[in-house]
């Protein structure tokens, strides 16, 4: 199987994921009457805007009403409001893909725009900053610790770390975040309790960056704390499984130094499954970001999701559900490519 074919199959699966989510979102919205309400609101908004414009030129009120009524019908036709919901599903899916979700009801971007697209464009980089930083730190901690532990399975340290891993797995990200706020923002006041920048934000690029990092510390720590434990455990188990293979014993018997055995023989073989579980772990870190951002009032996509739920802003909720899936699928694709680079077996199959 060539790389291209492998990638094509993976890509097709991920496209299937995207499509399944879209169809599910569209069907749920349609069948529950949500989309009717959303579209009616959009049409109502446009007609209201039109009325203000036309009121200047058309003086006769009957004439005005007639024009507006005509326009409303046109709009309803173009949005498909006059058809059953399942007949306009393709159109609906198209709108979601183009992120053409109209305007948020109350939520605004920093510059005051209420367009959902603007909102997401502003929030997405902030979420990515948080999640990628945390994932990289988690991956490094997990690799270093896990490999070390795998060589002493069953020891006291190993059992302690297993226990800590179980605890960190059982720790909800948001509650860990709250604890960190209580501890580091209110008891020992060394970190801010939330937000992106201090109020008012410091002037100058470098000071601003420093302020941003200072605010990002606690959220990143939270994300790392809740995922590092179980990840260390995964690495340890994978490495341990490989370490018990015969070829490792042979390598040791040959008198190779332990470092070489670990790097060349164990890690080389254990890398693909480790990468796989990192890929799978991404799903939970996307979810973790929603909760962590909410707790730390970090104005990324997760906090936006929370605010959209609180203010019952359908357009934003739908757009974000799609965006979260999209971000996840994109990250998966990147890791799939990495996977092929790490595992020669996939290439030469």
């Amino acid at each position, binding site marked *: 199987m060539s790389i291209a074919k492998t990638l094509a199959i993976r890509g097709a699966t991920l496209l299937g994921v995207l499509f399944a989510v879209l169809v599910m979102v569209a069907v749920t919205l349609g069948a529950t009457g949500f989309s009717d309400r959303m579209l009616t609101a959009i049409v109502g908004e446009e007609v209201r805007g039109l009325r203000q414009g036309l009121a200047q030129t058309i003086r006769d009120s009957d004439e005005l009403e007639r024009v507006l009524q005509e326009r409303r019908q046109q709009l309803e036709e173009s949005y498909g409001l006059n058809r059953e919901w399942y007949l306009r599903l393709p159109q609906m899916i198209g709108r979601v893909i183009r992120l053409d979700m109209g305007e948020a009801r109350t939520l605004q971007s920093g510059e005051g725009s209420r367009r959902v697209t603007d909102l997401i464009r502003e929030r997405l980089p902030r979420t990515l900053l948080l999640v990628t930083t945390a994932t990289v730190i988690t991956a490094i901690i997990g690799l270093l610790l896990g490999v070390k532990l795998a060589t002493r399975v069953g020891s006291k340290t190993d059992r302690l770390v297993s226990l800590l891993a179980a605890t960190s797995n059982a*720790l909800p990200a*948001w509650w860990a975040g709250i604890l960190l706020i209580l501890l580091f923002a209110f008891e020992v006041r060394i970190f801010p309790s939330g937000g992106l920048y201090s109020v008012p934000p410091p002037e100058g690029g470098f000071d601003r960056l420093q302020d941003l990092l200072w605010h990002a510390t606690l959220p990143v720590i939270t994300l790392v704390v809740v995922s590092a434990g179980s990840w260390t455990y995964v690495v340890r188990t994978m490495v341990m499984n490989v370490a018990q293979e015969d070829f490792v014993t042979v390598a040791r018997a040959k008198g190779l130094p332990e470092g070489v055995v670990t790097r060349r023989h164990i890690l080389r073989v254990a890398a693909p499954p480790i990468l796989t579980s990192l890929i799978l772990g991404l799903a939970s870190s996307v979810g973790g970001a*929603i909760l962590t951002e909410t707790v730390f009032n970090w104005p990324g996509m997760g906090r936006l999701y929370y605010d959209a739920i609180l203010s019952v802003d359908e357009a934003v909720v739908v757009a974000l559900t799609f965006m979260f899936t999209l971000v996840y699928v994109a990250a998966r694709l990147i890791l799939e490519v990495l996977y092929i680079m790490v595992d020669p077996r996939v290439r030469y199959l």
Partner: protein
Amino acid sequence: MRGGLRDALKELLSSATGRVGVIFLIIMVGVSLYAVAANPLDFGSRLWNNPAVWADNPENVPPAWISLFGGSNRVKHSVLETSTPREVRQTPAGQESAYAFDLDYPFDEAPSFTSFSIEDVTYSSRPTTITLSVTRPDGKSLTLLRHVVPAPRPGETYPVVRYRDSPFRVYLTGDTSVAAEVSRFLQEEFFVGVQPHDLAGRVDQAIFGIPDAQAVGGFQVLKGRYRISVLARSQDPLDSIGKVRFVLGGSRYGLMGTDSTGRDLARGLLFGFPVALTIGLVTAILATAIGTATGIVSGYTGGKTDIAIQRLSDILSNIPLLPILLFLAFVLGQKLWIVMAVLIIFGWPGLTIVVRSMVLQIRSGQLVEASVALGASPRRIMARHIIPQIAPFVFAQMIFFVPAAILAEAGLSFLGLGDPSIPTWGQILDQGFRTDAVYAGYWWWILPPGILIVATALTFALIALGMERVVDPRLRMARQ
């Protein structure tokens, strides 16, 4: 199949983590059974979310046991209640029933509030008149309240029953007529002029204190024995009052304190036990059952069925769960069963993929080959050779799934999408977070629900950890 599971259990109990997990689980099941027995099943809608139930509780106060750690003598929350009068006198004008409570007041502060309520009043001719008064340790007494039970409505026949379904309740602390009475009392007894509206919200300081210009708030607490008297006058000897109640609002409450609406957090947390266990176990069992069944079918039958199941589970297991869960709970409504259904629908595919690969491995083994040669039916092979071999693994996966489901529900509740009719630990935390209990330092509201969530998830994680050696025999070898 039984053999495999029995070995698994033995293995589980032989590890320390497994034993601890099992003990925790037994405790949790016990607490859950007690919670279900002690509370109605519609606890959420009937009690927890009904403000009337919690009206007589102090708001945002820490647990009672905190007094053990010293500090000044804070007011203990007391509910004084009776349904039998101390004395019934027959007078020319009719009948007088006297109810009384004796109250020791050794505290260093005024109560956080006081309230008075009566329930279930019956009268047969003249409406009952009720008077509430307080006699203080210094011998002075004051009348706080006079109330005439509403007269019969046109067309209503005697005997008239009042306040049966909803009691007559007066929040004395914020009542203007009480403030006027207290103002008059201060003028007459202490020659201190305080306007009634200046007393609003703090009449308790005056009732349970003496005016003192030096003291904070203008009153010094008067310690000693108080008597709260309630006098009910009516005409007919058959007239009655169901219940008389006087509440002294404390600044400590119960085992776990209260939240911002006065709810007893201990009761909410207690009811969270069976809810969490149900969410975790039901979801885990169903998802595991579906995952195992589809995995076996997929691995054993092969062909188109196999491809179809594998594609479907590939897609489902790749969908990020929380955003979808949020979306569905948002659109379909906040129902617990919807949440559980979503967790099951997106939970089984992961197991299917693994079970299938295990089945493929076993199927190509000599054991199955020999059975086929002996003429065993596919059903017999599945029941006798395949299921027993994967049973311990599947069981361990089920245990792993429980905390995942509990944590997912808790996260959803924390985002405000919990089922409002069923209180969960996540919801209690959500309310605490939204009402800024975190920033106000109400630790008794924030810490316990989180600790319980972690403890529950950890219980199952420990059991799963104890089963590690069952699932992965290589670890057993490593130990030897």
